[in-house]
Structures are given as structure tokens and as C-alpha cells.
């Protein structure tokens, strides 16, 4: 600091500059308080600004990830309830088969049971063709259209793709959105690959064609094997739902830590800012009063 005479132009320009600097600082603080942002432009703090940009982008993507997780979760819930319906139907079919396995049963009654089993096939196929929130088949993999197609003879065949689509949940995590038809329907019965629809259809056809209780008895083991496959699939959906819940919980934690980091990096601490503003205002007021006092001490006021 260079001392200048009170009566010189330098004294006035220096005082004015100092007061302008103070006033500018208070204005900057006031703007920070109003906007809640410490940075008005990147060059105020380049590294923090870059971090804020990245955090903002991550936040935007995380919002979509969270929406995607919710969607996957609801799709998997739909799949779980469809699987439960299928399991119920399949259990009912097993009850019918057990009934048909009773030798004293009249052939007409077996035929009626056969007819009921066949009608159950079409209702099971309808359940397996359940769609998700956007109208796509839950069990069809990545294909569009229904997962199973019934031909004229009532035979169900899988029309989807063998792979399932996975959905990214952010941070490198992903989840298979559903399960494919073959995953829950196919099983091996007596060394032959079959599925729950074919198994019920064959038994229904046989009973309708006048087969005896021995056929129904032979089919009972297949029902247990099919049920096992269905239960496995239900466990799978349950596990995936639990996984999504874990991911969602972590999403909440990371989004909180992102928000707190953003607040620390680019936010204004109101208490600190107000105290600082107060301090600056006191200094500004003091320098204004000081300037006015010192400026009055001119010899011209005294010489008469």
C-alpha cells in the first residue's frame, strides 16, 4: 500500500477503488445467497464446475435408471403373478389327473376330465401370453407378439426368442427383465423333453380318447417334474425382484451422496455467507465513514 496525501487525487481514486471492491464483494455474496449457487460461471471454480456438470449428468441418468428399475420391478411382479396363476392351473390339472387315475371311475367321467384338461391348456397358454405394462409378452424374450401360439389342433408352440433382454440399472448393474417361456415350461419326463402345455394336452387327448387310469397314473410323475420347473422359475423372479430392490436402495444412497456432494461443491452455506456479508458490510460502512471524516480534514476548511 502506497500512502497518498489526503488532498491528492490519488487519495480519492484509491478510496473509491477500495470501496468499489468491497461493494462488488458484497454484491457477489448477495447473488450467491439469492441463487444458492456458489458458481455463476465455470471460470469461478473450473474443477468444481466440471464436477457439478458430471454430477448433474449422472443425476439425470440416475433418474432414468430409477424409472427403469421400477419398470423392471413391476414387469417381474407381473411375471411372478402370471407364474402363480400357471402354477395354480397346473396344480388343478394334477388334481384332475389324480382323479382320473382312480380305476373305479367311469370312462365317460374320464372323458369329461380329458375335456376339462384340454380347455385348461388354452387358459394356461393365455396366462403364459400375459403382457407387461407396455403390451409386450412377459415370457417372449426379445420378440414382439405373443410368447406361445396355439395351432388349430390346440398345440401350443413357443414363438419367442431364447434369450431374454437385460436392462441396465446404472453403475454397471443390470437385470434380466423377465424369464422366457422355455425357462419355466420345459422339463424332462421319462427321458423325453416336454413342457407343461404338451404334458397336459397329451393327457387330455388320451383321456378323451378313452384311455384308462393307468395312463393318468403314469402322467402324475410328469406333473411333479413340471411343477418343479415352475417353482424354479418363481424363485428366479423372486430373486430378481429382491436384486432390483437392492439396486434401488443403492440408487437412493448414491443419489443422496451425489446431492450432498453437489451442495458441498457448488452450493452456498447460508449461515457462513450471511456472516461474511455482515462482516463485509461493516467494513464497507466503516471505510465509507472513514473516507468522509478524513476527506473533511482539508486545510481550506481552517484557513479563513
Amino acid at each position, binding site marked *: 500500500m502506497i500512502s497518498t496525501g489526503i488532498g491528492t487525487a490519488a487519495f480519492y481514486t484509491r478510496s473509491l477503488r477500495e470501496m468499489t471492491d468491497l461493494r462488488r464483494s458484497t454484491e457477489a455474496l448477495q447473488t450467491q445467497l439469492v441463487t444458492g449457487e456458489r458458481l455463476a460461471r465455470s471460470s469461478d471454480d473450473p474443477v468444481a464446475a466440471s464436477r457439478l456438470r458430471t454430477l448433474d*449428468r449422472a443425476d439425470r441418468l440416475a433418474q*432414468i435408471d430409477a424409472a427403469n428399475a421400477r419398470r423392471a420391478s413391476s414387469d417381474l411382479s407381473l411375471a411372478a403373478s402370471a407364474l402363480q396363476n400357471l402354477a395354480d392351473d397346473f396344480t388343478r390339472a394334477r388334481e384332475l389327473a389324480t382323479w382320473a387315475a382312480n380305476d373305479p371311475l367311469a370312462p365317460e367321467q374320464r372323458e369329461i376330465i380329458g375335456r376339462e384338461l384340454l380347455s385348461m391348456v388354452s387358459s394356461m397358454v393365455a396366462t403364459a401370453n400375459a403382457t407387461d405394462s407396455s403390451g409386450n409378452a412377459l415370457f417372449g424374450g426379445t420378440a414382439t407378439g405373443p410368447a406361445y401360439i396355439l395351432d388349430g389342433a390346440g398345440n401350443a408352440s413357443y414363438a419367442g426368442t431364447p434369450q431374454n433382454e437385460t436392462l441396465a440399472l446404472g453403475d454397471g448393474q443390470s437385470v434380466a427383465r423377465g424369464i422366457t417361456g422355455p425357462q419355466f415350461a420345459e422339463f424332462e419326463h421319462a427321458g423325453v423333453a416336454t413342457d407343461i402345455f404338451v404334458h397336459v394336452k397329451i393327457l387330455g387327448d388320451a383321456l378323451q380318447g378313452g384311455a384308462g387310469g393307468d395312463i393318468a397314473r403314469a402322467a402324475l410323475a410328469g406333473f411333479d417334474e413340471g411343477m418343479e420347473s415352475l417353482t424354479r422359475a418363481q424363485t428366479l423372479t423372486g430373486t430378481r425382484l429382491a436384486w432390483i430392490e437392492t439396486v434401488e436402495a443403492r440408487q437412493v444412497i448414491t443419489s443422496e451422496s451425489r446431492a450432498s456432494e453437489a451442495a458441498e461443491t457448488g452450493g452456498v452455506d447460508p449461515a457462513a455467507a450471511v456472516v461474511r456479508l455482515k462482516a463485509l458490510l461493516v467494513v464497507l460502512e466503516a471505510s465509507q465513514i472513514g473516507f468522509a471524516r478524513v476527506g473533511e480534514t482539508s486545510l481550506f476548511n481552517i484557513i479563513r
Partner: protein
Amino acid sequence: MPTNLILVGKSGASAARSSLEMTAQNIANADNQSYVRRTTALAEVVSTGGINLNSSTALGGVRIDRIVRADSHYLQAEVRRTAAALTRSDAEIGGLLAVQDAIEQAGIYPAMARFEASLAQLASDPLSPSLRTAVVEQARTLAQSFGPAVQSMDGTRQYLQTSASERVSTFNNLAGEMARTNLALSRTTTGTTMQAALFDQRDALLSQMSEIAGIVVAHDPLGRATVRIGDSAGPVIVTGRETEPLSMAIAPDGTLSFLVAGGATSIQSGALAGEERALARMVDLRSKLDDAAASLVFVTNDAQANGLTPAGIPGPALFSGTGARDIALALTDGAQLATAPAGSGSNSRSIVNLEALRSALASTTPPGSGPASLMDGLLLDLSSNIAGRTITREALRTLADGAQSALTAQTGVDLDTEAANLVRFEQAFQASGRVIQVAVDIFDTLLEIR
């Protein structure tokens, strides 16, 4: 003898009155920035010869010898040097801030994040027409956000160039004025009010010139200035009454170069140097912005070509163009987005290709950096530049203010001193009047002898 005493008193009163006038002049110019405080230097008058007088005891009073101007060549040069560095820094930061605002306010980076978010959303339901439309619209916004940035940068460049060319012509006018002042200085008498006023004018011109381009000045015994650009080995702009004009050329890439007498000259400080540096930096920034746009075009079009649209054909280009200036949306319909990988057939809900596009866009490792990472790098680079230069500018401002204060303290008018002088010279005037009164009394005493 009494006659002599009256003359001495008269000369004293006259000298005191002149000093009072000089004090009044100083006070009147107290707020004149280019005015340098003056004082009157007095000299004794001694009478020589007289028939019946002894010359060794004859006194003649006092006279105004010359006008003294409180000058300091060193402080003047220091003020010029520091002010030139400060104006350079101001001009450079001004240009770079304008570019930063252009890029930030165009919102390219947020538009990229929104585009990526729309792609992430599409992954949840890849065949949904509404989500596909959302992606196309975000892509359109993104492509369009480059336009304002480019236009703003063009505007800034235009402004800097116009401003620099005006400064060059102002500089040449000042140099011409300086040459005329030199001429006037060689015709004026030393120690006169006229010379002091010409010195003021000379110093004001030199300080205006140095704010445009850094100069070094040499003074000859008459006070005439020889002005060179840059350092003491730089080309001569003004010597005596001769001037050499400074000229400026604009290269096709928008950068500036300066010429004196046909030779290339580098200007190290002053506003012209700042504008030159800002324009040179803009070339690099524009190419980085182009890189980000080109990366966006390449990454998206590459992914489109590798994947299949719902119709089962490879996707057409998403963006057209090669840089920030001409990037535009090429896709016309959301159904043309290739989300499924090759070989998946038509109407596939597979998102393998979409995920490949998303990871390519988000890539942060060079050389395959995605556009978002390039944009962030560009902004970080630019804002770090500005932040660093702002710190330098604060240091330069302190130096310039200090030098200016030191000069003003040395050469400016101090009102307290002038107030004291007023009293002093008034008393001197009254005392001289008293001397004349005494002479008259002596004369009367002699006449009354009987």
C-alpha cells in the same frame, strides 16, 4: 536609494503574485489526471553598474526564473508498463469470457445429458414409438444447441477483430499526435508554461499509446520522445517528427498479426496483445468444439450402421455434418433408430446395440472419448484458463494501481500543500507591499528635513 527599494518591493510582490497564480492553477487542475504539479523557481536580480553606486551592494529584487514541473520518467515508464500488462490481461479475459458464456449458455453439455437420458429411457421399452420420438427430439435439440455457440463465437471473433483494427488506427493517430508534440517541443523555450503543458500532453499521449500496445520510450534533452513497440530493440514508431504506421493483418483462421515498416512485429502487452491472444485461443477452442460435434456424429452414426431398426435394416445416419457449424439431425422418424444388434431380425426388442451406443457416448478414456467427455474437457480447459488469468490480472491490477498511486503522489496536486502555499505567498505579497510602504516613508522623511 528609496527608488531601488520600491523596485525590490515591486519585484517581490510581482513574484509572490505569480506564485499565487501558479498555486491557483494547481488547485484548478487538481482533478486533471494528466496534469503534473508545477512550481515557480525564483532567481535573485542583482543590478550592475551605476555611476555613483557601488555595484557590489546594489540589489535588484527577484524574478521568475522558470516553471518547474514535478516529473519522474521512471514512474511514468512504470505506470505505462503495468497499465499495458493490465489492459492486455483485461482484453484477453474479456474475449475468453465471451467464448465461455457462448458455450455455456448454448447448453450443449446439458443437451447431451438429456439425449443420453432419453436413450436410457428407450432401453426400458425399445419399440415404444413415444420413447423413440423423444430420442429424436432430444437429438434435434442437441444438434441445434451447437448453432448458437458457433454464432456467438463468430460474433466474439468479429468484435475482437473490429476492436483491434480500431485500436490500430487510434494508435497511429496517437503516434501522429506524438510526432506533432515532438515538433512543438523542439520549438518551445525551456522552463516556460508552454513547455510544461507540452510535457503533459506528451505523457498523456504515451500512456494512451501504451494501453493499446506496449511501448518503450526514450527522451532526448529537449524532452522529445522516441517510441518503440515492444522493447528497446523493437521497431521505432515515433522519432522526432517522423512516424512509422502500425498495420494489422487478419489470417483466414481469424488470428491477428502486426506489421511495422513491412516487418512482422510481435506485441507483448496492451489491449492489442490481449485481443491477439484471445483470438489465437479461439482457434483452438473452435477446433475442440468441432471435435466434440464430430465425435457425436461419428459415435451415433457408427452405432446406427451396426444395428438394426425395427424394420430389420441397418439404421440410417442419426446426424449429418462434420463439425459444430454444420451438425444437423438426419433422422426423420424414431422408427429409424437401430436399437437391436445385427442378426436379431425385425421387431426385436433387444437393446444390445442401444447399450453399445450409450457406452460409446459415455466413454471418458481417450482416444475414443465420447462427446460428453470432450465437451466437459473443453469447458474445464477454457474455464481453468480464465481462472488462472483472472488471478494474474488481480496481481497486475495491484501492480498497476500501485504504480499509478506512486506517480500521482509524485506528480499530482496535493490540496493541503497548495492551501499552505496560498497563505505563504499571500504573506510574501503583503510583506513586499510593506517594503514599498517603508520606501515611501523613507522618502517622506528625507523630504521633511529642514
